[in-house]
């Protein structure tokens, strides 16, 4: 759950990262101008549909991207403060040489890949795979110590010791994913990047693994970049969320903020794509159309052909990721993190349509009469629960007006 982070220092800063697939004129822009900050101990959720560039972003910042993927610009700063050390060393991962990368990868920055069956070696036993990394990175350890550590790691993720001699195919999907997590944590990294770690699992298993993961984070203090398409899960899990669409970040906000007061029409549409577990059954519309192909992106804002609020300007000019002009809650937010949205509706020239203006300082008189066809944010009405008990991440009283004015 979202623990409030009071101005934790950044551990990873991504600035204007651009990734292309292919070279020259025909290059496809996989990621364009991504800027992100990951703070110590934070869970940053990266949500988007397939092809939105979320995995590409993760692979680019770990420098794991394979050809034809090319990083064409930007910088990725890793503020390295190894366990027990008081000093912080800043490394530009995009400029780092192979030796430096080797030193940082896994030991400071680990990745849990999407498909555990494919990421584990099918012909090696679990213990071999767990001790391999220790052999490479902790040369002083004896075989007995390595084995001991492997047992400890397995126990940490809730697998009993007798599974050490198993092959991956002898483990269930959930256990394989746990082994992957244990491997990622073997060297006590500062950052763990998880690419759809639980997508292939059943809900109960998924919940168990996430519970364990959150406990481990509490204990070991690493930061997580959690990549998924399941926004409803992310809202529960992450501290802050970045939404990607067609290779660009379109919104960045605290998890609760995003849920209650989305500022980008795409975020709103995504939220309306998940049927609720409570309340009345209301017909929901999702988002019309389908995600664009990166080889034929629409001009201007890539979302405009699917957007219910599109204006003339959206088809020609690409909005930048900026603070919503009428959002005055940023002044008093605790975590020092600005919330950002890449949408012309939020540039202050007009008041955004009601579903995207919840909690904004727009004059109340402007709200009614905004033609909002079929986008009435169903499922958001029933907020009796939140206004009583929920800590509104920096939203303060603004958040509570929602329910009234939204209706």
């Amino acid at each position, binding site marked *: 759950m979202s623990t409030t982070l009071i101005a934790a220092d950044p551990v990873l800063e991504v600035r204007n990262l651009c990734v292309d697939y292919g070279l020259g004129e025909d290059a496809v822009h996989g990621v364009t101008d991504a800027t992100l900050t990951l703070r110590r101990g934070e869970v940053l959720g990266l949500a988007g*549909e397939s092809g939105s560039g979320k995995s590409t972003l993760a692979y680019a910042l770990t420098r794991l991207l394979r050809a034809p993927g090319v990083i064409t610009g930007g910088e990725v700063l890793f503020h390295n403060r190894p366990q027990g050390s008081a000093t912080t060393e800043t490394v530009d991962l995009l400029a780092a040489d192979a030796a430096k990368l080797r030193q940082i990868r896994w030991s400071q920055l680990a990745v849990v890949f999407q498909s555990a069956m494919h990421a584990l070696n099918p012909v090696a036993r679990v213990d071999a795979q767990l001790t391999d990394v220790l052999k490479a990175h902790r040369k002083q350890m004896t075989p007995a110590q390595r084995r001991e550590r492997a047992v400890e790691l397995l126990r940490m993720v809730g697998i009993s010791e007798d599974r050490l001699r198993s092959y991956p195919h002898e483990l269930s999907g959930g256990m394989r994913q746990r082994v992957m997590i244990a491997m990622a944590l073997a060297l006590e990294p500062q950052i763990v990047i998880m690419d759809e770690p639980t997508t292939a699992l059943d*809900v*109960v298993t998924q919940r168990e693994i996430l519970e364990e993961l959150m406990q481990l984070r509490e204990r070991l203090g690493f930061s997580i970049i959690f990549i998924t398409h*399941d926004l*409803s899960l992310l809202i529960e899990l992450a501290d802050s969320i970045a939404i990607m669409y067609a290779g660009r970040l379109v919104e960045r906000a605290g998890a609760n903020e995003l*849920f209650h007061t989305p500022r980008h029409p795409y975020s709103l549409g995504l939220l309306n*794509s998940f*049927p609720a*577990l*409570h309340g009345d059954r209301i017909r929901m519309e999702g988002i019309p159309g389908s995600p664009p192909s990166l080889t034929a992106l629409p001009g201007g804002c890539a979302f405009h052909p699917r957007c219910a609020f599109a204006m003339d300007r959206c088809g020609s000019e690409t909005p930048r990721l900026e603070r919503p002009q009428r959002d005055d809650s940023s002044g008093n937010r605790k975590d020092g993190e600005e919330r950002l949205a890449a949408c012309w509706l939020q540039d202050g020239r007009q008041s955004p349509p009601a579903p995207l203006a919840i909690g904004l300082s727009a004059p109340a008189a402007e709200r009614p009469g905004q033609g909002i066809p079929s986008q009435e944010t169903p499922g958001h009405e029933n907020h009796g629960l939140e206004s009583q008990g929920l800590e509104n991440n920096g939203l303060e009283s603004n958040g509570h007006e929602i329910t009234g004015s939204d209706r």
Partner: protein
Amino acid sequence: MTPTSGGTPTATATPATVVHGPKRPGVPVLEARHLTKHFPVIQFGPASRRQVVHAVEDISLALPQGTVTAVVGESGSGKSTLARLLTQLITPTSGELLLNGEPVGTSGKARREYTRQVHLVLQDPFSSLNAVHSVRYHLERPLKLHRRSGRDELGSRVLELLERVSLSPASGFIDKYPHELSGGQRQRVAIARGLAVEPKVLLADEPVSMLDVSIRLGVLNLLDELREREQLAILYVTHDIASARYLADTVVVMYAGQVVESGPATQITDAPAHPYTQLLLSAAPDPQRTEPPVLRGRGSPPSLVTPPSGCRFHPRCPFAMAVCKESQPPAFTVAPDQVAACWLHEPGRSTDPDTATATSTATNSSTSPAEAAEATDAAPDATSGTSE
């Protein structure tokens, strides 16, 4: 509280056969009686040791016209096997199928008639469409095989089908190949193919799980329109209980090859009676949740080769009692149209289905004290969904 359980009708044992599915007057289009499927485990050795996977056990299900029935469960719960049994793609070990109230024959002709009336939409539109054939080919084929239209009107029938699944302009899609379509469009073509022969029943096996989030609702809404407009009986197999609640009239929850609970969709999610349904709901992502959920009944489904005795959920159940280990619970009526196969709801054991779980934990639980405490703590949760 559901309005009906306010008066707290005493839970009553239902007759031996419980037919799950929406209750509607008249003869259901498709009815399954006591369907059972055991898959043999291939192994060497004496025949006496030959084992079977108990994939589906004694399920009776009725699909009336114009309704959506959702089958919810984890992987391995037998939900897809059930759908396949209903298509007659696999033959049941025992049990029978009734189409429009008539037992289904085994002759080739009867089989053809059955496949015309009952159609399947598969999970993955990326592999269920043939990559080397156009949309036109895919949609003409069932029309030709079932001789549904003359050669001269084939083209117009295909266009009409595309319009029915909201692929317009249809003429723009008819000559496309699967790779030229997006996931949602492909699934619509797959549904159109299912509709080509004007079936009465559409069996959709996880039709949206491979699709992008933003277009899932579009396909679900399409199924809803087909139910409404064409009065189809739809079986929606899914692991996503939230989408089942959204689309279905009735939700049937399966665990380890058996139905553990069934009832009206919102009733099941607002007042789940079976501990497994409660577990599923607590594990499902829910942005409105303010506290991390408490999972009651961790672990994974049992082996279906040697399923647990009694209630198959008892090894995981936080409320397991002695009787659960010994005998299999029948389906008890816990609310109008809602049945749960759980001894907690045996008449006389408890009067209120919503609090049954909490009280029985305190008295009968064989689990650890910590878990029991957890369960009592969480008891308000079980009702919170309904009290708003």
